[in-house]
């Protein structure tokens, strides 16, 4: 099932776009699996996703750990730790 992915801050800059619609294979079941699958594309994806400790995620706009399942998710966001305020 297609998923909308959003990228923010330096993740967005490395990948070169703010988001895209993807259709991962059935064996991609978590946010971390999605990141692995995208990183395998190489290029900016490999750069953005090199260090998993520096990545945070949201599924359908709720902050979640990277091992969260993506079954049924419509929107997944991948981004650096937040620095607001």
């Amino acid at each position: 099932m297609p998923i909308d992915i959003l990228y923010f801050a330096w993740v967005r800059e490395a990948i070169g776009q703010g988001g895209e619609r993807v259709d991962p294979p059935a064996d991609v079941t978590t946010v971390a699996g999605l990141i692995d699958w995208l990183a395998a594309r190489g290029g900016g994806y490999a750069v953005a996703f090199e260090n998993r400790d520096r990545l945070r995620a949201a599924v359908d706009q709720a902050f979640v750990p990277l091992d969260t399942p993506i079954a049924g998710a419509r929107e997944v966001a991948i981004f650096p730790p937040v620095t607001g305020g």
Partner: protein
Amino acid sequence: MIRVVVQDAPIDLAAEFVAAEAEDAGAVATFTGLVRGDDGVTELALEHYPGATERALEALCEQAVARWDLARAVVVHRVGPMVPGDRVVFVATTARHRGAALEACAFLIDRLKTGAPFWKRERRGGDARWVEARSSDDAAAARWGPEA
């Protein structure tokens, strides 16, 4: 009453303050964060996650209102490019008693530093870099207990 705004426009402090006072609450605490220029920063740009940002800030305000019995919780956060002296964030809390307003105001600014999807990029002349998350912000947020 909760008021959350994420905006590109400058923060109108006087309007926000007058609105916060209108609740007959007795005590109004505010915090304003400004762009500092003292370490060579010439521009600060804030990126955010539209929709998720507002939801996260509203959830923080709801927690604060319930925990401290507030009359009002306000968070106005600016996004986009800013220069030193510009207001980045304004937090206001009102309550019958000053302790509740002061504590809730500190809670909101501590928590929104770590719990809302904003990212800062600083420019110093020709050089721009994304601001790294600070462990002191995590520590400040953690003193309020586990996140809801």
